[in-house]
């Protein structure tokens, strides 16, 4: 679950991590008098906001209201701006980078710090990023910040502030099941204070059962993906025109890839998962139909998901939702012959192997295109 910057900063506040003075608004009239000069930051879940023009500066309320009106009318990387965080401008002396993430290959939390803050960390040379892993069993230890502050060249009061901030940040990371806590930039002000000017927090969606206070943000999903999520389908919207229904994440990806290698572009990823429920199969169709594909390709390797159940679901969907689009089906595995028989009786092409079925999709697609 991606958090908006202002939600991340609420967590920072809860843990005592210093943040700039500020508040979030959902309409320009909510801007008050006593915050100027201020930064207005569009709240979106996608990265690269600054480059996309999502951050503005205002010296007074009038300026701020005009800028806010403009920001609220914007769409940043397909995301409509619903909230703006307005913050008192900091007197920046220096910008650092600090994050805690999960290193998949070491299977441990990883702390990364750099003096090159305020830019995308991917663009920073590796030797300028200082890294320390944390043992997840005993957790964070203060020696880690001693090493990092020395490498960063932070001394005295700043080193103390950094150590304090990092231990709080790790506590948040651990207690909130975060996949990422990132402060970029972590600002050193001219007054000598360390302040988290930005906050990027991602909470593990699988941990939400123990974090009832974490907000559910769906703004990084498309409308169709939201409907799919509501209906409990593992679904990703893509920009092609072949609707796809398959089972298993790996096989579904392989199905999309096979189409792509034939020059066909998939419209979606839809994984039925391990189910033997005819309704789950049937109800996947209206979802894919909403995406207006030119063809629907169903690719099933039967195991727990039995091929005859899938076939029944397809036949029911075709009748109930009045589907006139071409449907190409590949069924292999448990009860494949029964499944193909059911489909044949209902006039639907069914194949046993993947290459033949993808070829068929390609043929039909080309004949549609030629019109």
């Amino acid at each position, binding site marked *: 679950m991606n958090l908006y910057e202002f939600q991340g900063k609420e967590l920072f506040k809860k843990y005592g991590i210093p943040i700039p003075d500020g508040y979030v608004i959902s309409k320009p009239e909510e801007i008050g008098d006593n915050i100027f000069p201020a930064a207005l930051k569009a709240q979106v879940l996608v990265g690269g906001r600054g480059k996309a023009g999502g951050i503005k500066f205002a010296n007074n309320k009038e300026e701020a209201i005009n800028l806010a009106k403009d920001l609220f009318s914007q769409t940043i990387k397909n995301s409509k701006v619903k909230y703006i965080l307005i913050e008192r401008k900091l007197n920046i002396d220096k910008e650092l980078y600090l994050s805690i993430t*999960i290193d*998949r*290959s070491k*299977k*441990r*939390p990883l702390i990364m710090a750099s003096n090159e803050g305020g830019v995308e*960390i*991917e663009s920073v040379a590796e030797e300028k990023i200082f890294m320390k892993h944390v*043992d*997840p*069993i005993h957790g964070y230890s203060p020696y880690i910040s001693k090493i990092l502050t020395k490498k960063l060249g932070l001394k005295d009061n700043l080193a103390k502030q950094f150590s304090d901030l990092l231990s709080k940040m790790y506590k948040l990371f*651990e207690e909130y*099941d975060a*996949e990422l806590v990132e402060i970029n930039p972590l600002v050193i002000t001219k007054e000598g204070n360390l302040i988290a000017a930005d906050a990027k927090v991602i909470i*593990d969606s*699988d*941990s939400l*059962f*123990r974090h009832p206070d974490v907000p559910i943000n769906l703004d990084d999903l498309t409308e169709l993906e939201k409907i799919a999520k509501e209906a409990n389908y*593992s679904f*990703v919207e*893509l920009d092609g025109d072949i609707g796809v229904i398959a*089972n*298993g*994440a*790996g*096989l*579904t*990806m*392989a199905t*999309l*890839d*096979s*189409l*792509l*290698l034939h020059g066909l572009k*998939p419209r979606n*990823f839809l*994984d039925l998962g*391990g189910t033997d429920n005819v309704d789950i199969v049937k109800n996947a169709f209206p979802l894919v139909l909403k995406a207006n594909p030119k063809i629907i390709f169903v690719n099933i*390797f039967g*195991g*727990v998901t039995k091929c005859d159940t899938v076939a029944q679901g397809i036949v029911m969907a075709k009748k109930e939702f009045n589907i006139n689009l071409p449907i190409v089906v590949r069924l*292999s*595995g*448990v009860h494949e012959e029964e499944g193909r028989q059911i489909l044949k009786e209902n006039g639907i092409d069914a194949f046993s*192997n*993947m*290459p033949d079925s993808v070829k068929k999709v390609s043929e039909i697609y080309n004949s549609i295109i030629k019109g």
Partner: protein
Amino acid sequence: MVYIKKDTKIIVQGITGHQASFHSNEMIKFGANVVGGVSPGKGGTKVNGVPVFDSVEETLHLEPEATMISVPAPYVKDAFYEALDHGIKIIYILTEHVPVHDSMEMINDAKLKNAIVIGPNGPGITVVHEKTKIGIMPNHIFKKGNIAVISRSGTLTYEIVKSITDAGMGESSVIGLGGDAIVGLSFVDVLSELKKERQTKAVVMVGEIGGTAEEEAAEYIKNEFKKPVVAYIAGRSAPPGKRMGHAGAIITRGKGTAESKIKTLNEAGVEVANYPQDIPELLKKKLKT
């Protein structure tokens, strides 16, 4: 022997659940030595002829060596520690959606105690030549042979295994690593087991986008693994930043793309199939030379 052998004594935690009762029966049919099940409050009953106990402690007289955990995600960590604390050294977690911080803790702790974690969110392990399995792979796709398959997915693995079987070859072991971002076994871990294992003549790696496990495997293969390896990588068509079904199948900050994995594997001499069904041909070619 890859992690389990014919007489490895297996218990199933959560055996009275819908999935676990079905799959423990399939395991028994395949030849696995399932000695007991655990389901709090259901002790004294039987599932598929297997005695059910209220706790792992009560199964200890059966000397369990391996466990399959199939309980809801919020309870996995508790079930895991119940097994680990009672000395079980092979712990397979079937459950999907285990919090990643739980997985990190469990897997790091297991390592200290010399236990092996398989999964979470994978189909388990089938050791064909030992006629045993722990997990949910369908029984009918296997034929005894000398190809090992290591995979991050479920259904796609079955597809590839069946294509190998249909092409007249067979499998030694099939190992499902799991689709999560953090899993117990990596490709490298399994390759280092297979290196010294006699039944395996060639290896199929089935990888996917996300993380760098395939790249690390490529490095290991280049330097230390002499048996022929072929691969398939799913997710060429995946857009960055989107989770493709598996929690671990996501391209983050430009890392974990299919292109990177395919390129690195090719550079290590591993041929990567364009389509899953091309795997048997690649294997035949490799085994001839």
